[in-house]
């Protein structure tokens, strides 16, 4: 039995997508792929032609195409031709693409069966990430060490007190209960409202912190009732940039996962404007789980 249950029966790739995929055009020089990998700290790049996925290029492909490490073979390498190689010359074609809903178990199976090092993950027509053997190995290590696939010791929830945003809280608590993880619910008050309250009102911040904490406690208690008891739940209030504060706190608390709601807009890589989740994935020290509005099924019945 899987230790963490999300929407489906098994853990899926969505939870492993840490950041937007770094991609490269097939016409780019192979040397540019090498440089991009080095700069981004990745070993696999989905290759695009007119925004369409046409291949994968790996560090291994580039090594194999590059000059020989053996001097007497290196002597026959033709440097001019080598410099002229493009990504399409060295990439593998027709990559096996997976979706965010593919289960981790299936990905592991496919990686082994077809000897694949990294899968592009595609949602609709968009490339939303890359899942590598390294990611899969990290899941296995989590299962072996902690008894759950994500190595989930701490979950940070970016809460919102707006109506209809209970989905994020519910989802995070459900995860935490399943994994036995500690939870911190963090509410960030945007800085501008704080500035407005500065003038001669020193007692006011204390008051709203208390008020917000009471509201959060009510919501958390309600969600706990629905999802089960969380071993450790802390409520915090901060002020400043929402994205920056959540990322900073996640760093300080060594969080393994951040859960936020996505308001009205589309999911992780929505085309319509940026959501908090979009911005968070760029700066967060751990994976971000974006819970779409309307997934708070438990709310509807209340």
């Amino acid at each position, binding site marked *: *039995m899987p230790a963490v249950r999300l929407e489906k029966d*098994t853990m899926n790739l969505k939870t492993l997508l840490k950041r937007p995929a770094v991609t490269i055009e097939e016409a780019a020089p192979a040397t540019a792929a090498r440089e991009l990998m080095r700069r981004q700290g990745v070993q696999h790049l989905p290759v695009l032609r007119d925004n369409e996925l046409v291949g994968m290029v790996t560090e291994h492909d580039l090594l194999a195409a590059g000059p020989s490490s053996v001097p007497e073979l290196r002597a026959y390498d*033709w440097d001019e031709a080598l410099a002229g190689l493009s990504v399409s010359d060295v990439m593998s074609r027709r990559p096996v693409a997976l979706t965010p809903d593919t289960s981790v178990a299936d990905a592991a199976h496919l990686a082994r069966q077809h000897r694949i090092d990294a899968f592009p993950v595609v949602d609709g027509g968009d490339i939303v990430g890359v899942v590598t053997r390294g990611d899969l*190995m990290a899941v296995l290590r989590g299962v072996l060490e902690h008894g759950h696939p994500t190595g989930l010791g701490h979950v940070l929830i970016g809460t919102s007190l707006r109506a209809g945003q209970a989905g994020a809280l519910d989802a995070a608590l459900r995860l935490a209960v399943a994994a036995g993880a500690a939870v911190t619910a963090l509410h960030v008050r945007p800085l501008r409202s704080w500035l407005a309250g500065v003038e001669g009102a020193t007692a006011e911040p204390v008051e709203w912190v208390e008020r917000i904490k009471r509201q959060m406690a009510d919501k958390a208690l309600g969600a706990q009732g629905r999802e089960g008891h969380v071993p450790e739940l802390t409520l915090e209030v901060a002020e400043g940039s929402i994205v920056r504060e959540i990322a900073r706190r996640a760093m300080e608390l060594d969080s393994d996962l951040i859960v936020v709601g996505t308001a009205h807009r589309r999911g992780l890589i929505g085309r319509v404007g940026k959501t908090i989740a979009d911005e968070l994935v760029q700066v967060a020290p751990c994976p971000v789980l974006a819970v779409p509005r309307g997934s708070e099924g438990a709310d509807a019945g209340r």
Partner: protein
Amino acid sequence: MRVGERMRRDPVVAGPHDPLGRARRLLAPHGIRDLPIVDRSTLVGMLSAADVALAQPSAATTLTFGEIHFQLGRVPIERVIRSDITAVGRRTPLAEAIRLMRARDVAAVPVVSGSQLIGVLTEEDLLELLAKLLTPDTSSWTPHPRR
């Protein structure tokens, strides 16, 4: 779970003086990515597919296929293997072995007893284990609470 439970016991091996051409023939068709290099049953190194990829002539070589074959036949394996060996023991926890493999960026680690090679732990075997553990019906895995 420990390395001994998951390792391959009779891995394909090569000798340090064997030509690179032989290593290529052993690696590719068998789907093997890493070859323990053994000298009179003592482990002397690991030859990875990446080492072989790096050694082979570039995509822009002026050598013909036959010449490449000839040249690779003359280069002994010991000239391209990494001299530092990372190995684990039969009793090493699997999670520790995985951590080591990630840190060293290798897809397999040799398992030794003293300096004798007794097996190999590969990513392929670990992927199989992962698929098994995360598949609800076939797994007998029961999670234990973290704290």
